[in-house]
């Protein structure tokens, strides 16, 4: 009586997602794979080259240098932003009217477009007219981010910390807010020190959100392009040429499509591998629930 009717129209529901993912991820990725194994001299004529570009990129010192800079940058900002974010979250009030004030203040840097952040710091740090640059030089420091690699790095890291620590703060704060008061009372009854409360209650309870925070900060900082591009453009020299900046130089500056495509794929695989390692290490030994 009630025979099951086959209805292929159901596919229409997933069509928007399929189209979106195809245009957004699958087709570009296929194009990149395509470019990475071919050589062209124009006229839309392509020759198959196999893994030549991959070998070239993997053996190029320029790529090694950029990768090293990238790893250093990501490492430094993770080491600064995660503990700092947790510390700020711990210092924030848990209830009362100041909670929303703090949250709004914390969210502000996250609302600013990335290129605007770069432009702000570019002007802010200028040694002649920028507030920060004038101040530092006024204090007797020799600071000029357009000429000294160290100044450029310091500015770049300060900018990223200013821009992104809030994300860690908000996630850590959400994790802290989810801990019932009874935990703190129980610890108080036990006579646990505030270090013990942090180490044995707050940190384990924040572990999940901190895993997400570290992963997000790792991936975003490893992909960072806009802010250093606007701030230093990769200079002085190549001192702040991170992977993505180098990639754009190769792809658009030199128009070496093959090597750029190969580098993109290697870049992507590195992020994938490192993310997996981070995730595995951070969720190791966790219970089922």
């Amino acid at each position, binding site marked *: 009586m009630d025979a099951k009717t086959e209805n292929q129209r159901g596919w229409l529901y997933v069509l928007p997602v399929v189209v979106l993912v195809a245009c957004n991820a699958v087709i570009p990725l296929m194009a990149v794979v395509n470019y990475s194994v071919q050589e062209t001299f124009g006229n839309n004529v392509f020759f198959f080259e196999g893994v030549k570009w991959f070998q070239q990129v993997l053996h190029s010192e320029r790529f090694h240098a950029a990768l090293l800079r990238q790893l250093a940058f990501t490492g430094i900002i993770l080491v600064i932003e995660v503990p700092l974010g947790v510390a700020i979250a711990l210092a924030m009030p848990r209830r009362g009217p100041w909670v929303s004030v703090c949250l709004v203040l914390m969210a502000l840097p996250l609302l600013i477009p990335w290129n605007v952040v770069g432009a702000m710091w570019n002007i802010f740090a200028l040694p002649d007219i920028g507030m920060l640059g004038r101040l530092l030089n006024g204090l007797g420091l020799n600071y000029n981010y357009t000429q000294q690699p160290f100044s450029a790095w310091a500015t770049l890291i300060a900018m990223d910390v200013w821009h992104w620590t809030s994300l860690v703060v908000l996630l850590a704060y959400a994790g802290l807010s989810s801990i*019932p008061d*009874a*935990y703190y*009372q*129980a610890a*108080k*009854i*036990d*006579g*646990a020190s505030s270090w013990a409360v942090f180490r*044995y*209650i707050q940190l*384990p*309870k924040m572990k999940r959100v901190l895993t997400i925070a570290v992963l997000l900060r790792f991936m975003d900082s490893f992909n960072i392009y806009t802010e250093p591009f606007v701030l230093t453009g990769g200079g002085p020299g190549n001192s702040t040429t991170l992977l993505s900046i180098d990639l754009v130089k190769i792809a658009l500056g030199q128009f070496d499509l093959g090597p750029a495509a190969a580098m993109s794929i290697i870049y992507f695989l590195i992020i994938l591998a490192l993310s997996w390692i981070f995730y595995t290490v951070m969720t190791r030994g*966790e*219970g*089922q*629930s």
Partner: protein
Amino acid sequence: MPLELRSVTKRVGAHAHIHDTSVRLAEEGFNILLGTTLSGKTTLMQLMAGLEQPTSGTVWFAGRNVTRIAVQRRNVAMVYQQFINYPNFTVFENIASPLRVARVPAPEIDKRVRRMADLLRLGPLLQRRPAELSGGQQQRTALARALVRDADLVLLDEPLANLDFKLREELRDELPKLFAGRRCTVVFATSEPMEALLLGGHTAALHQGRITQFGPTAEVYRRPVDLLTAQVFSNPPINTAPVTKQAGSIVLSDTVRWPAQGHQQQIPDGPYTIGIRPHHVSPVAGGHTAARIDGNVLVAEISGSESTIHFSHGPLTWVSQSHGVHPSQVGDIARFHLDVGQCLFFDADGRRVA
């Protein structure tokens, strides 16, 4: 080692959480704090523990004023509604944690933890983490942590509320055995009158930050001093109705009246409020003196062995609860029998007079 509150109050801003309260807890058996949510059970416990400072008044323990003594130096233990354990410690380490803070030597810790784990049937689970335990096992771990330190005062704040029905019954049966023979004062907060009756001991009925009555549980249940206590200590809610006593009769409505019984004969004529528990309102006539009351059936529920029927009589809604299955249809006119000898009489101020 009795715990005593003397004229304790707790105010937060303009809001009074606990009104002037004086109570001396029993040393034997459970001290049950019975009240609805927000009646002040948790605040009262925190005052007893020393987690909160009273706004005025003093807390005494074993004849000593402990009001200003910090909680960690009072040797109290507390178990909560949520299952509170250190998330990344094993069950063993969780139970051992209060002993480690107290710097008990390791072999002694091992002995005491294992004894406690056996008592709470956690023996095979000692190496697990809380996330790998069921709710019941997590709460057992929390209980073991509270018991292992031989605290002078153990506070249990609705410890069974988050458990499944079956586990709740199981643990409730075990609790009195766990505390038997221990020299400690036990306070147990609950919002369920049935739980108070099952655990026995003494009960303090709480209403809006005030202890309305404190005494042996059965006594508080059978002879509540006032209407509020009777209401707190009844589930389903106690039926209340205005009545008038005149010429030796109690008049509830045009059709419901009965000759005054027992103590009811001694109270002067005038208006009263009666309270009668749902299980004294039955659809079948019993052997006792009963007044018949007819009503419109509003809700009829049968839960296996019990029938619960809500009906209206005039402007009032009544609840009847009786053993056995008594089917009735919504909208029926049904006849019920009030066991009038069991009626509680309250005067205009809500105090019980008969």
